[in-house]
C-alpha cells in the first residue's frame, strides 16, 4: 500500500507492506538513527516523534503514520539551517551522557519531547520523561544531568 509521510520535514510517498512497523520502514528508507533494541516497546531505542509526541516506532504500524509528520534523531540538528546541534544533543555530548550511543537517539528524542511540553522539569519529571528508554551503559546519571542543563539553556534562549 502507498502511504505518505513527512520525515524530518521532507514529504515522501512510500510503499509499505501490511504489518510493516514504522521502525522497519524508517530504517529501510535510510533513517538508521532509529535503533532496534527489542521490537516490543520495552527499550525505547526506536523512539521517534509522531507529529509532536514520542512513540516507540516498533509499536506503530507504518500505515498508522500515513499522513503524519515523523521526526527522527537525524532531523534534530540543523533545523535552523546552521547545522547546529539541538541543545539536547549538545548537552548529551558535553556532559558525558553518551557511552555506546545505541540508546542515545531514542533517549534524545524522548528528552526533546519532554522539554517541548515541560520546559522546566524537575529531576523526577526528567526521570519519568526517559523512563521508557533503557540504557545499560550509563546508569542515567549523566543523561539526567544533560537534560537538566539542556532545559536551562533552552529556557534562556527562549527568553532572549
Amino acid at each position: 500500500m502507498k502511504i505518505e509521510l513527512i520525515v524530518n520535514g521532507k514529504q515522501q510517498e512510500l510503499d509499505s507492506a501490511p504489518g510493516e512497523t514504522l521502525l522497519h520502514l524508517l530504517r529501510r528508507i535510510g533513517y538508521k538513527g532509529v535503533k532496534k533494541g527489542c521490537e516490543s516497546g520495552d527499550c525505547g531505542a526506536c523512539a521517534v516523534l509522531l507529529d509532536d509526541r514520542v512513540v516507540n516506532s516498533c509499536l506503530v504500524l507504518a500505515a498508522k503514520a500515513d499522513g503524519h509528520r515523523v521526526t527522527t534523531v537525524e532531523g534534530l540538528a540543523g533545523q535552523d539551517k546552521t547545522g547546529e546541534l539541538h541543545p539536547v544533543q549538545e548537552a548529551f555530548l558535553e556532559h558525558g551522557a553518551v557511552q555506546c550511543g545505541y540508546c542515545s537517539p531514542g533517549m534524545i528524542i524522548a528528552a526533546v519531547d519532554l522539554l517541548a511540553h515541560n520546559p522546566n522539569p524537575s529531576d523526577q519529571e526528567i526521570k519519568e520523561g526517559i523512563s521508557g528508554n533503557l540504557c545499560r551503559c550509563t546508569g542515567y546519571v549523566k543523561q539526567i544531568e544533560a537534560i537538566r542543563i539542556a532545559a536551562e539553556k533552552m529556557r534562556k534562549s527562549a527568553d532572549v
Partner: protein
Amino acid sequence: MCEQRKQEFTIVGRSERKVDGIALVTGKPKFVADIDLSNMLYVKILHSPYAHARITEINTSRAEALPGVMCVLCSKNTPSTRYTTAGQGYPEPSPYDTRMFDTKVRFVGDRVAAVAAETEEIALQALKEIEVHYEELSPVLSVDAATALEAPIIHDEKDATGIFDPVRNISAKIDINVGDVKQGFAESDSTVETTCETQYAQHTPIEPHVVLSYLDEDGRLVLRTSTQVPFHTRRIVSYVLGIPLHRIRVIKPRIGGAFGTKQEILLEDLAGLVTLRTGRPALIEFTRQEEFVSARTRHPMRIRVKLGAKKNGILHAIEMEALSNTGAYGAHSLTVLSNVGSKTLPIYNKARNVRFSGKAVYTNLPVAGAYRGYGAPQGYYPLEVAMDELAGKLGLDPIELRRRNHIRCGESSPIFEEIGEGREGVAQTINSCELERCLEIGARRIGWAKKRGLRTRNGPWIHGLGMSIHMQGSGIAQVDMGAATIKMNEDGSFNLLVGATDLGTGSDTILGQIAAEVLGVPLSKVIVYSSDTDFTPFDVGAYASSTTYVSGTAVKRAAEEVRGQIVGVAAAMLESGMTNLTIKDEQVISIDGRSVTLAEVCQRAMYQVDQFQIGATESCVQDQSPPPFMSSFAEVAVDTETGVVKIVDYVAVVDCGTVINPKMAQGQIEGALANGIGYALTEVMLFSSTGRVQNATLFDYKILGALDIPPIDITLLDSYEPTGPMGAKSVAEIGINAPIPTIANAIYDAVGVRLTKTPFTPERVLSAIRSHSV
C-alpha cells in the same frame, strides 16, 4: 608509601568530548546493521526446543525448496570442528566442546539449523519447514543434578578436548593452597562461615548480537561485527571454517554495548559460511528473545567462604569454595572460576593460610560466559558478607576490620602468583593503593558514624547502612597484548590506529587523549580508528579491564617514538640539538624561542629532505595487573510489610590511578553500579521445569530504568600507578562487584537478616524477615 604523581597534564585529566560523539548523537550509520548492501541475505536460526536431546534425523529438503531460500545449514553440511566460542588469547583456556551444528542439543536455544533467504519472512517460514526428529534425554537443570551420582553426561562426545572431567559434567576445576587452612582455622580465635548463591543474569546490551558478512572485490570474507574481540574472531572463524586467516577481515564499527557477551564468537562463523556458500552478503541479527535464550549469561554460583581471625581482628585463614554453573558449554568456565578467587582474595593479604577451590559444571541451561566483573562479583558477595559477620562477632566496626586487613602499597599476596588465567599467575607488588582514603572518604560521605546501627524507622520502612571494599585487575599480566600505530599527516594531524576495541566505553577517546598529551596537540588533531584486522595492529580486544592500562601504554609508547622522530626532523630544521627542543601547542620550540610548526615538520619529512613517513607501531604486554580499588557504601530502607528494598543513597570512592577523562570514568562506575544494583535486586532469568527461559523480554527481565536509579555519589581519588600510562589503572569492571554485598550488609544493618541468595526480591526479603522474627 605510594608514589605521588609528579607530572602535570594538559589533555589527560580533562573531560574531553567523545571523539565519536557527534556521529552518535546525530544518528549517523555507525553500527553493524546501519549499512545496506545490495543482494543481502537474511539468516535465521532454528533453536532447540529441548534442553537435552539427540538429533536422530534432520530433513531440510522442504525448506530448501521454498522460493527465496538460498542456503540451509545444519550438522550434515557444516564443519564438525570442535572449538570454543570464548574469544580469548590463543590457546584459549576454555574447552573445545562446541560445534557449529551438533547432532546433540544441550540447552533450549541451542543451534539446530539455519536458513539464509531473500527476506526475513522467507527465512522464518523456511525454519518451520525443517523436519527434526529428537531423541529426548534427561535434562540436567541444576548444579546439584549435574554433580549427582549417575547424572546424565552432557558432553559425551569423543572429540571434545580440554574438559576437566566430562563423565562427571565438570568443565573446569581449581584447587589452590597457601599455608595450611585447617591449621589456620584451629589457630584462629574467631571463625565465621557463609554460603551465598547468585542467579542466572544477563548482560542485555541494548544492541543485540549482530553480524554482516560479505565478500570484497578480491573474494576475501569481510565480517562487520559487533564484537569485543576482532582479532580472536578472525582466528576462531578461520579455524572453524577451515579457511586461511589471511582470507578474512574483521571490522568492528561502533558497538551498542557488550559487557562481556560480545567477547564470544556467536554468529560470525555462521554468517561467514553463508557468504562463502552463496557468494552473497548475509545479515544475522539476534532478536531480543534470542539474545536472552541463546547468547551468554553470567555464571550462577554457590560459594562458601570461611574466615578465621585472631583476637586482634587480623585474618589468619580464608577458605573459599565455588561451584559454578557454566551451562551447556564451557566458554570461560575455568577463567571465570579462577577470577572468583584471584580478584578477591588478595585484598585481604594478611591471612597466611588460604585455600581456594572450585569447579565449574555443565548443565542443560543457557551458556554462561564473560560478563563485566568476570567472577569477582560472585566472589565478593560471600567474602564481604562474611567480613561483615566477622566484624559483628569480634565487636569491631566493619570499616575497622577492613582497615586492619586490606592490602597496601608495597605489599603483595601469594594469590597473585598462584592463580592466573587458566594457568599460574604472576607475582606482583602493589604500587598504588588508596584504600585507606577510600574508606575514610566513603564513611564520611554516607554518614557512617551517625547513621549506622540506628535502624531509623519511618512507618514500615527501616533504614540501614552497609559497606564493602573491592579490587579488580588491569588486564591479564604477561598475556594481554595491545599495539598501536600512529602516523603523521602533513597538516600536523595524526592517525591513531588501535586494535583496542571501543565498545561504548570511550576508549577511543582516552587513547586519543594519551596520544595527544605526548604529541603536544589538541585531541581534535588525533584521528582515532578502531578496529579493523586489515588496518589496525593486533590487540587482544576489550576485556579484563585491559584497554587503558595495556593498550594505553602501547599508545603512549608509539606517541613517544613519533615524538622523537618529530624532534629529530625539527632539530635539523632549527639547527639545534634535540635535547633543546620541546613540543607544545602544535609547535616544536627551541630553547632560544625559535619554532617550527608540526605541519612544517611533516611537510619536510614527506616532500623535502631525507623523506620518510613519521610514524610508529609499538606494542605492550604488562608484567603486572595493578588492581584498582574502591570502597562502596549504601543506605537502604527496607519495607518490613512488603519486603521491598529501596536504596536511599549510594557512595563509591574509587582509586583507578590517574583519571584520563573524569566524566567517562564516572560514567564507567555509574553504569557498573546500576548494572550491579539490578543484579542485586531485580535481575533474574527464570526457567520452566523443562529448562526454557520464561522471561525473555526486557519487560519481564527487569534492568534498571531512570526511575530506579538511586542518588549515586562518586569520588575518583587522585592516585598514581607508576607502571600505567600517565599513572592510570583500569576502571571499567570494578564497580559491578560492589552492590550485592554492600546492599546485603545494609539490609542486615536495617532488619538483622542475612540474605544469601540473589536477587533480593521483596518475596525473599519478606520471607527472611518473617522467618527471622519467628
